[in-house]
């Protein structure tokens, strides 16, 4: 995997949520092969940024490029087709559909039936708990299992870039650890990852570089080991008491 080539290149985007100026000139780069994390508190604009990359929200200014081509004017379904999948905030699995059907929807953009089957086995390998419940209605799964399904579903599109929106939210620490281990594994198998988190402690353990977002702007950008040492980050996001 050639690390270093920019895969996702966000330059100076401005996105509005209704009348709210949510992203105020945000720039961020994810290189091929990396795990990059974006941390920030509630309402800082983390999800807005991911929605803008996925095309659900449109930026009014700036540009987003993926593997060298501009994507900020594309519809969401076309962005999935060129290789970006998102695990949305709150999982958003299809709760009336079975696990198998959810995974089929994840592979909606693909037609290579035999490789879809192989990948299906692959995600069951990552999340064995889903394999035993293939015909179960997804709405009856526990929170952790739903998060697994949401990640598995996104992987079924065979993305080059995986966007994860707070995968640790609402999960017990042990489950969070299991999910993050899986994210590392997915990354090692060649999927570049952008991880949006409030849980900076966990995110710094698996990401190589990190960005800090506050009210729609990137205020800090560094390697994660340096960010962990940063006083402001420690105060605000790592819960370190500085008395």
């Amino acid at each position, binding site marked *: 995997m050639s690390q270093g080539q920019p895969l996702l290149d966000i330059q100076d985007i401005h996105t509005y949520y209704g009348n709210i100026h949510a992203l105020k000139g945000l720039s961020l780069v994810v290189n091929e092969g990396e795990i990059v994390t974006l941390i920030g508190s509630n309402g800082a604009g983390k999800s807005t940024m991911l929605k803008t990359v996925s095309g659900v929200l449109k930026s009014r200014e700036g540009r987003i490029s993926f593997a060298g081509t501009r994507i900020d004017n594309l519809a969401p*379904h076309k962005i999935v087709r060129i290789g970006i999948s998102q695990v949305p905030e709150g999982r*958003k699995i299809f*709760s009336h559909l079975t696990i198998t059907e959810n995974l089929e929807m994840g592979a909606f953009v693909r037609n290579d039936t035999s490789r879809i089957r192989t990948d299906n086995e692959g995600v069951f390998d990552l999340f064995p708990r889903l394999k035993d419940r293939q015909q179960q209605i997804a709405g009856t799964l526990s929170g952790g299992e739903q998060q697994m399904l949401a990640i598995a579903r996104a992987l079924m599109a065979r993305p080059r870039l995986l966007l994860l929106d707070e995968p640790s939210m609402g999960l017990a620490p042990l489950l969070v650890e299991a999910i993050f281990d899986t994210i590392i594994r997915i990354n090692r198998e060649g999927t570049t990852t952008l991880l949006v988190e409030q849980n900076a402690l966990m995110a710094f353990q698996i990401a190589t570089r990190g960005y800090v977002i506050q009210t729609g702007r990137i205020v800090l950008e560094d390697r994660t080991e340096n960010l962990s040492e940063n006083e402001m980050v420690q105060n605000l996001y790592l819960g370190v008491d500085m008395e």
Partner: protein
Amino acid sequence: MSYLLNPEVIINQIINGLTIGGIYALMALGYTLVYGILFMINFAHGEIFMFGSFGGFAALTYFVNSGFADAHPGFSIIIAFLVAMIISSVLGALLERIAYRPLRNAPRLAPLISAIGASIFLQNVMMLIIKARMQVYPDIIPEKFIEIGGVSISYFQIFIILGSIFLMVGLYLFIQKTKTGKAMRAVAEDREAASLMGIDVNRIILTTFVIGSALAGAAGVMVGIYYTQINHMMGFIPGIKAFTAAVLGGIGNVAGAMLGGFFLGLAEAFGVLFMPAEYKDVIAFGLLVLVLIFRPRGILGEVVSERT
């Protein structure tokens, strides 16, 4: 009232109820499919049905006049159904693009008013085409009866009951088994999440209108064959009754629409045993009022959450 205990009367009314119920069910599916995905009532659905009926009428009339129907009656009927379903589908697709899509993010009242406007517009278009005269469906299925015991079932009824069940089974398999059908369910549940799967949400919504309209078109031909007389206002009452059936079954629920259609048909068939036939419509709308008061989510409907 002793005739009420007569099993022949009861069986006859069951057959009558299933016939008209199958037609209601086919139309109710159109309301429920669109509501399931857009949370709007397509009040021009009755006119889509009416245009389908006229499409079938035009095709059948042509076949009868050209003598083709004498040689190939079955084939003529199949083509008439296809013509009706295609005309209704195209009309449904046009309505979605012109009357509803531009209002997708408007307040919910706006597409409703647009739908009522489209309905009146389409009635008037057909009125001008047929110069407001009643049209008579050519009789192509022989009006014969099968007698079993004292019960007589007409060929029409067998044809309509089997035809409507055939279409409903087809629809059910489509929604459950095909990739597009599953995508329809995914879009109905969460439009944004569906788009993040790479599903073209606009295309799925258009497909939903096309399918619902095609079923209404088929129902239009069935009504034409069954009642023989059609006019430009024919969509209004069946439209509202099918809407009632959809609400009865639980709006947004596909199996509920089928159930609601047959339930309403049977309720009407048995209701006329107790009251003058002119009061038939009272049964349907009385049921609507009762359902809305006591079980607004319908027979199979879920508790309506605070979805916006």
